[in-house]
């Protein structure tokens, strides 16, 4: 049997993900996290924080909640249903860092946790920084043009 025939056979018998269900669930969970963020924002501004500081504290709070749920072994059970709903918000980043840190702990704090903590989250940091640089250059040129 040639390679193409094998590929066809695999494709024929491999069920795909349920796109509709995944989209709905990720919308509900992702939207839910945004609602929680907004409620926290309202809470912090009511407590007297200014808007800029409130946004930062909301992010920190969501990161903490996701880290706590990861440590308690709850996050992955939610995320397997939520998909992109928990992955895309800052909760996904928090989970990627904390879960990797938990895994690496048995290999020591320096060569384990220290060296491996960004194994999963690394691409987000690298390409996040790079896109920040690109955005900065565009912004600089735009400002030179009198924008």
């Amino acid at each position, binding site marked *: *049997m040639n*390679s193409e025939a*094998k*590929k066809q*056979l*695999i494709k024929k*018998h*491999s*069920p*795909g*993900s349920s796109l509709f269900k*995944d989209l709905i669930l990720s919308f509900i969970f992702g939207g839910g996290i945004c609602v929680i963020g907004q409620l926290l924002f309202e809470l912090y501004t009511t407590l007297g924080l200014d808007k800029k500081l409130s946004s930062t504290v909301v992010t920190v709070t969501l990161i903490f909640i996701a880290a706590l749920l*990861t*440590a308690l*072994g709850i*996050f*992955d059970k*939610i*995320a*397997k249903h*939520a*998909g992109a709903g*928990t*992955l895309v918000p800052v909760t*996904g980043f928090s*989970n*990627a860092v*904390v*879960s*990797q840190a*938990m*895994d690496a702990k*048995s290999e020591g704090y320096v060569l384990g946790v220290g060296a491996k903590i960004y194994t*999963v989250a690394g691409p987000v940091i690298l390409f996040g920084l790079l896109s920040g640089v690109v955005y900065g250059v565009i912004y600089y040129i735009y400002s030179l043009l009198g924008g």
Partner: protein
Amino acid sequence: MKRITKINSDIHFKSWAAVGGYEERRGPLGEKFDFCDMSDKFGQTTWEIAEAEMGRVALNTALSKSGLSHSDIELLVAGDLQNQCVASSTGLSSFGIPFLGIYGACSTCTESIMTLSAFMNSSETMQMGGAVTSSHNSAAERQFRTPIEYGGQRAPTAQWTSTAAGAFILCRGRGDVMITEYMPGRIVDGSTSDGANMGGAMAFAAFDSIYAYFEESGENPHNIDAIITGDLGRVGSDILREMLSKELPGTEALHNDCGLLLYDMKNQDAHSGASGCGTSASVLACHFLPMLAEGRLRRILFLSTGALMSPSSLLQGENIYGIAPLIRLESGKETNK
């Protein structure tokens, strides 16, 4: 090319043991396991050592069931999924038995039994040997995929690496379950680099071995009660059955897969089924060997299926290669008649 070796001297399974974790206990075969640790940790602090301990417990259980001492065993053949097969060497070190570590990915169970029987078949003096195979879900996830608590979605074609071990004591002479033939597998291109579809990739290797067996032996499929593969899961089993129905009509109905038996496919989150070399080892030990011993099965072909790849080879876009060594097991009750 002659691939099948007939075992001239009688070799039988003296005893066997299956050890598992939480999900394995919850599965349909759960009560047949000799021991399951509901924490998956086996009293250890790391997943890797937990797997080593699981292998040790499996061999210890098989030894005590046979009434033998570790000093009676002349050779141990064992393997697992961890880098450098360190679970086997760590877990089995305390027995002080001469050791051969092997790697066959998830084909390790059949490979270890085959290797051991080849040694016993060619030796005039060797009386007893042991074969041990283990895999641990958390150790495998850490090594091959993402961190254990990472929140991701698995593809419907993905499989669940079992936390399970099987240990087998082989002994010269006649017994309730005999191993009568073995046939090493060939390395067969799975034509996919999708690490979430290893069952599909391995199906072609399983077919290659089954087809070659019937072609070379001329055996009538009616004489075989079951053809059991290791961990093809739902996707791989569907592919294999389609190929068998075309090329060896009638044999597809004899097929079953340990990866479809270990977990409740509806209520456990196993997706396409169980995988990991502990799957075929534990299902052979807790399900098929007892059936053979009781005479409920007479003759079976047993093929653990291995996906030969590494995390690096997958990232580099290389195909997954499959391998399926085959052993023929017969009920002693049948052959004694």
